[in-house]
């Protein structure tokens, strides 16, 4: 189909002086994010408006008891019903199914997945987009472990993490080393969940994934590489747990190792 005759393109002509007529959908799975949601949407709106990009945010809320959905409706009033879509679900059903649910309502041609708790900053999205366009990549992922992007992007800043002590860093690097040795995925940050996908690519991969939690993000990346999709990486800064504490127990470690083994066997 002629890309200049797509709905997005026709609607945008004459409104923006921009060469980028793609529409970017952000899928935000939320659970009890009443405090964070307005701010993350404000940051997203600011970034997209600054760069003159067509955007939408799909908030997939798993029946939060704290009123996240009311805040989402207020934000839809402020930013537009076409920009903030609230698609709630009946209960806490998991991340993978949240993405599948959100994908049903996407009207963009690229999908960005990220966390709603400020660990992923929207300011990196234009860098993702620029890298994707420069090399026609199918997937661009954020990495916390690199200082430069692959392939090269001039405006990339070194990545990093804030809020991790030595033990957490060791665990993180160890886990990544294990997964990289066993699976050889070709990306430096396997468990990262700040990614830009081409819509058909995400649809394809998500129908194939079977795991949950940390391993779900790993599986998506490993399957994407196995299917031959092109992947680029951009360094991101990750500010962990700006409110609250996280715990990494032995159960999670065992679950992770099992997940890696499962992927080794099946992909």
């Amino acid at each position, binding site marked *: 189909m002629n890309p200049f005759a797509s709905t997005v393109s026709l609607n945008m002509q004459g409104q923006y002086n921009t060469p980028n007529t793609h529409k970017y959908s952000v899928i935000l799975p939320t659970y009890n994010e009443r405090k964070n949601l307005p*701010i993350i949407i404000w*940051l997203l709106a600011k970034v997209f408006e600054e760069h003159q990009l067509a955007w939408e945010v799909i908030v997939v809320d798993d029946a939060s008891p704290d009123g996240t959905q009311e805040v989402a409706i207020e934000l839809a009033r402020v930013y537009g019903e076409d920009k903030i879509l609230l698609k709630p679900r009946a209960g806490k059903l998991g991340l993978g199914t949240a993405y599948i649910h959100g994908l049903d309502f996407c009207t963009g041609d690229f999908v960005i997945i990220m966390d709603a708790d400020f660990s992923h900053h929207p300011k990196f999205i234009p860098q993702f987009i620029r890298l994707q366009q420069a090399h026609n990549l199918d997937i661009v992922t954020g990495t916390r472990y690199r200082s430069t992007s692959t392939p090269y992007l001039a405006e990339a800043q070194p990545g990093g993490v804030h809020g991790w002590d030595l033990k957490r860093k060791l665990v993180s690097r160890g886990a990544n080393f294990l997964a990289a040795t066993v*699976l050889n995925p070709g990306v430096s940050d396997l468990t990262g969940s700040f990614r830009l996908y081409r819509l058909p690519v995400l649809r394809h991969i998500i129908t194939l994934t079977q795991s949950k939690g940390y391993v779900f993000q790993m599986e998506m990346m490993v399957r994407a590489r196995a299917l031959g999709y092109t992947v680029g990486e951009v360094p991101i800064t990750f500010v962990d747990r700006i409110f609250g504490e996280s715990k990494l127990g032995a159960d999670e470690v065992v679950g992770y190792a099992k997940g890696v083994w499962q992927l080794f066997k099946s992909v």
Partner: protein
Amino acid sequence: MARLHRVSIYSSILISIYLLVLFEVLPITLIDVSIAQEILPVIPWWLLVSFGSYSLWSLGWRVFTFRDCPEAYHELLQEINEAKNDLRSRVVTVD
């Protein structure tokens, strides 16, 4: 073919070649047999130790060079404040 299967096939081929050479079923050219017989039994342990030391070095180096980003944290806090003020003026519940 899954990665497990590929790795299993390659490693079985390599291990069988190694065992054949070790038990002198296959001859080695260019190296004295006695020297070869001293080196060959040690090769698996050598591989293990090399892998272990590589992993240790790699892990240690990566933890050492793991970047902290306090400036990102401060910038984020400022932006959160800015966002809250802006949203309050547009009548959205923050907090």
